């Protein structure tokens, strides 16, 4: 570490952050609130815009809001906070011995005009996120197949779907559902293909998955569950290019489709760490303080791996930013603890809440509440008198209370089944009916 007390006015240490996603946006906030003047900060982002809220991309696709409303860091913001933002630029090499980066900047869309540069760093943060996972289907590099990760993907989908109205979305996780909802809202007919037996199968059970399917079906989205795409079919379009015309499924069934979005999950971008010799497993490995195997290089967000876990949800990543910001701006340290996290989602207007295990077993007792017409389903899984699983669909009231009870391992059996209806029923003892006969 460089010494902080300097005799002459030495220039501040330089902090370079590679990647300009949501994690970087949050990290900058955490650093600025603690000591804005400590570093000269440079952010290098592949995309043109400042960091923006990727979760809202589906609402943009659904034309419920516009791109500018989801930008969290405008160019003006960077200027006001003396942060140099180098957009449309990738880092291609890191020389750890001289602590210098090599960058490539693209000055037009078809990557024909490229300029390179070198950049010194005292502290380097890798926040390069992840990319859409690939699927083992044949004939993928044809026109009409998109991932749904960033603004460019959204813009491409938006323009392509203007005259391609028969879409298929592959992946029944949150991203796939959001993409399907976004497209369907603009009048595109959408078919969603999902490998498992029910949607959001890691957060919901069969009943809740089925209810979600009913809700989304009302937005005229049709579902094909328990199937995968084995081959994309193509036709030659007007300008003699191969373009998507249909898909073939594991069951052999063929469906026409002229636009496809692949949203089956994410793969961490760990190449940059790999090429400069950092320790990499499923992603760039970091310790409890977000430090990689090089103590001047940190990593966080979807590109890092802490103990055995990688990350896709907002809550733990926010804790990583806090831990890293504290280390970079003060002398004390705060461990990043990857505590279990409750998944709180809003899919096409439906509230979901899920934590802990989703399926019952021999050792558990499961309490369920099902109101089909109100599209409300609530489930608590109890083991040895404590909550080990929460699934709430349609009405998520008391979700955080249950989550707290789960984490604190509070005994709950005597409050069942009323507790399932809401924490407000937990405190009341069952009312004793007075002994009726005199």
């Amino acid at each position: 570490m460089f010494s902080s007390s300097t005799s002459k006015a030495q220039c501040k240490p330089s902090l370079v952050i590679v990647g300009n996603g949501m994690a970087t946006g949050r990290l900058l906030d955490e650093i600025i609130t603690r000591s804005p003047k400590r570093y000269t900060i440079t952010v290098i982002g592949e995309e043109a815009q400042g960091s923006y809220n990727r979760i809202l991309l589906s609402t943009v696709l659904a034309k419920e809001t516009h791109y500018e409303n989801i930008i969290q860091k405008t160019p003006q913001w960077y200027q006001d906070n003396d942060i140099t933002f180098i957009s449309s630029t990738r880092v291609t090499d890191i020389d750890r011995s001289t602590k210098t980066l090599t960058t490539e900047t693209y000055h037009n869309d078809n990557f024909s005009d490229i300029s390179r540069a070198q950049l010194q760093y005292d502290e380097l943060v890798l926040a390069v996120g992840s990319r859409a996972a690939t699927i083992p289907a044949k004939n993928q590099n044809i026109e009409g197949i998109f991932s749904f990760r960033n603004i460019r993907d959204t813009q491409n989908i938006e323009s392509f779907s203007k005259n391609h109205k028969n879409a298929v979305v592959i992946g029944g996780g949150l991203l796939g559902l959001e993409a399907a909802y976004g497209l369907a809202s603009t009048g595109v007919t959408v078919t969603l293909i999902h490998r498992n037996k029910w949607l959001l199968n890691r957060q919901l059970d069969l009943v809740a998955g089925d209810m979600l399917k009913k809700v989304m079906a009302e937005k005229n989205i049709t579902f094909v569950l328990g199937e995968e795409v084995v081959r994309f079919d193509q036709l030659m379009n007007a300008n003699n290019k191969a373009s998507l015309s249909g898909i073939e499924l594991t069951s052999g069934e063929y469906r026409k489709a002229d636009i496809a979005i692949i949203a089956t999950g994410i793969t961490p971008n760990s190449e940059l760490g790999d090429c400069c010799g950092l320790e990499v497993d499923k992603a760039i490995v970091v310790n409890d303080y977000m430090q990689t195997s090089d103590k001047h290089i940190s990593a966080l967000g979807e590109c890092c791996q802490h103990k055995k876990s990688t990350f896709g949800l907002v809550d733990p990543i926010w804790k990583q930013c806090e831990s890293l910001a504290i280390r970079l701006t003060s002398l004390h340290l705060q461990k990043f603890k990857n505590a279990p996290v409750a998944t709180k989602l809003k899919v096409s207007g439906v509230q979901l809440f899920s934590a802990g295990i989703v399926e019952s077993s021999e050792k558990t007792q499961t309490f369920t509440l099902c109101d089909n017409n109100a599209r409300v389903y609530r489930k608590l899984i109890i083991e040895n008198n404590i909550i080990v699983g929460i699934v709430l669909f349609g009405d998520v009231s008391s979700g955080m209370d249950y989550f707290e009870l789960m984490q604190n391992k509070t005994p709950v059996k005597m409050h069942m089944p009323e507790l399932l209806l809401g924490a407000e029923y937990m405190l009341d003892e069952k009312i004793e009916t007075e002994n009726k006969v005199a």
Partner: protein
Amino acid sequence: MSSDIIFTDAVEAKEVKTTCPYCGVGCGIKATIANNQIISVKGDTSHPANLGRLCVKGSSLSETQGQNERILNPTVNGKKTSWDIATSHVADKFQEIINEHGPESIAFYLSGQLLTEDYYVANKLMKGFIGSSHVDTNSRLCMASASAAHKRAFGEDLVPGCYEDLEKTDVIFMVGSNAAYAHPIVYQRIIKAQKNNPQLKLVVIDPRATATSDTADLHIALKPGTDAYYYNGLLMYLADNDKLNSDFIAQNTQGFEKALNTARTQLNDITAVAVACDIELSTLIESYQLFANNKKVVTMFSQGINQSSTGVDKGNALINCHLATGKIGYEGAGPFSITGQPNAMGGREVGGLSTQIAAHLHYEDPGAIDLVERFWQAPNMTTKQGYKAVDMFQAIDEGKIKAIWIMATNPVVSMPNANFVKQALKKCDLVVVNECFENTDTVKCADVVFPATTWGEKYGTVTNSERRITLQKPLLTPPGQAKHDWDIICNVAKKLGFEEAFNYQHQSDIFREHAGLSGFENTYSGYKAEEISDKPETPQGVSRFFDISAYANITKSEYEAFKPIQWPVNKQHPTGVARLFTDNIFNHESGKANIISVLGQLPKKAPKADQLIMNTGRIRDQWHTMTRTGRTAKLMSHADEPFIQIHPQDAKRFNIADKQIAQLNNLDATFLGRVQYTEQQRIGEIFTPIHWNDNFSAAAKVSALVNPITDAICGQPEFKHSPVKISPFNAVWSGCLITYKTLKVDTDYWTKIRASNSIKYILSDTGSLPTDEMFLKALLPDIDDWVVMKDDKSESIRIAGFQDNKLLCFFNASTNLNEKYSTKFIEENINQTQSIQTRFKLLAGIDSDAEDIGAIVCSCFQIGENSIKASIAAGSCNTVEELGKQLKCGTNCGSCIPELKAYFT
């Protein structure tokens, strides 16, 4: 515009005086009526029986009115028809059966809830015109013993005392009477008397501790059925301690020596009495002293003594002591049999029993048959007693009786060995029933059903326990084609060809004839010689004290203005008589009372080792088989399930759990009731209420377990003592079902309870807990919007059924049998519309005080729209950031920020 023009079609409410339909106290009530509706009911301050007071049943009479479940049309074999066809059908069938099997194959079974005029024409038709003496009444089940004891002692069925005696006495004995529940207003007068006169002593003799014994100075919890031993013991005590009234014995009684010796043969001394009755010797003596040392003693007795296989003997043993001490015929002294039903006395006055002819005249009184035959000009006068109630249904079963006409009572529920009665009726060629309410158990066995008027529509006289006759007036017009019972009987009588003898136009015509018969050739010697000058020298006729001949020429308007009065009412006593025997003259040839020799006898059937003695009786807020009181929620709040009161030691012996369901068995009938541990119960004896039946509970017809053992003299069944087996009811689950209408529930145990605006069923079953709403769908096919909360180990399940978001059904069951919960919140929500979002919270069964935060905007922190709007309205937040600081919304994943912004534009 003149002031008397009003702009409403509401009619001036008018007030009508009448009497309460329930117990034998016979309280006077003032009902306010408008637009054929009872607006309110108050106690009639001017009526001597209750002086303005009313018990909870009387005061909630207006809540029991209503046309639902009323029988509106005559039906023959289930098909609605006209009065003409139905009465012709009955008359023709009667005639056919008479021609083929003789008049003796016809029977009538009447009720203490018929009015005196109904009783008179029924009795007259059968005993004088059809020619069958098989006319009995449900009073056989409650008053036959007392009536026979009075006849043996006084020569006539006379209740000497009046309610005022209870307020003007030194000691009150209450034997076999839980007046607090069965005669609440008489009980309230006793309580008031205790307050006004601290010296007044109240002694309660009852094996069971009850609400009545709670306020007693002395409670003698004697062994069941040993009352005769107690009173024979008292007779000996009085003799041994020189407490007799030898002058009275010599001049006014017969049979004292023989009775005393008979008593001594069984009990050599007082300690033997204490042993026989299983009570402390000191308590026994203390009670004997109270009787012996006070001039004014009233002994009130009821079903505890009457409903026994030796009920008549017990009654006489008690009366013997009053006669042996002359404690009778003056204020504050005498035996006082209190009647169960409102007009049991009316029935006894008319003679509507198979053991009498009419008006206190008996087949065995010389000249009585001829007297009545001449008065009625009867074509087919009967000459001997008929079947008593239990024998009557036995005779039906044996085919001796081919047709029975049942009026205003529910024998399929109230008769002992009730299931046998049901089979007997099924075998009977013709079962005719007069009834006001649909689907009583007896109506279900009827071939012909006549819609009868009920209380509030009936018009006629009733007599209460203290011989006071009151006119019960109509308040409402009868619904549908309902007719008065006397009108129906007269219709059939005319169709049987007895046109001229049953051509009554109005109740007063019948009452006038009834009064006439009471005075016809009445040679009661009790009248001073000079007063009976208009009687011929050689008195031809029969002496009876019951004489209301003052009304032998009563006009219709005098009848309509009839004021409550205690009979006799004749030339000698134009203003009625408060107390009888003030002249110590009794109605035997000798003019003396008989002291009857009585041997104490225990109940016929002793319990086997594995049996308990079942005692049955009333509870405070219900009446008979709940046909009327079961219609209002208020009367269900005191006790809402059939129950079994058992001593904890007995419960332990048979491993019966408290507050759970238990099963009683006898005569291959079953009773299921909620167990109540109570020390008030003697060991070896249990108590069950008489009110529940197939309409209100799965297996609660308690009288189906009562052995058909009767008193040899009067035929009254031994309701108070039936050995039964008890066993646990192995419930797997219990719960409740609350809905908006009556359902045909078929769990092993169920009880229907009328709630404020819904019907509640308490359920329990030995099968497995239901796992979904299928069984409810079968009961309520019109509901297909269900909310279900359950667990996969099948420990509990709650289901709510909706229609257009209205809660129509709520079911809550669990395998935890001790689970307690209040259903009041749900009862109030039945039929109420719910919000689709929060309706699932109803399954908590209680109100939630959780604040309604509105639709959720920020999922991360569960912040609802209402909280956001409230903060903005409070002016403390003008930007999304400030909102975030105050409520945290938008400060985590930020995806709700666009929505938050919208609140500011």
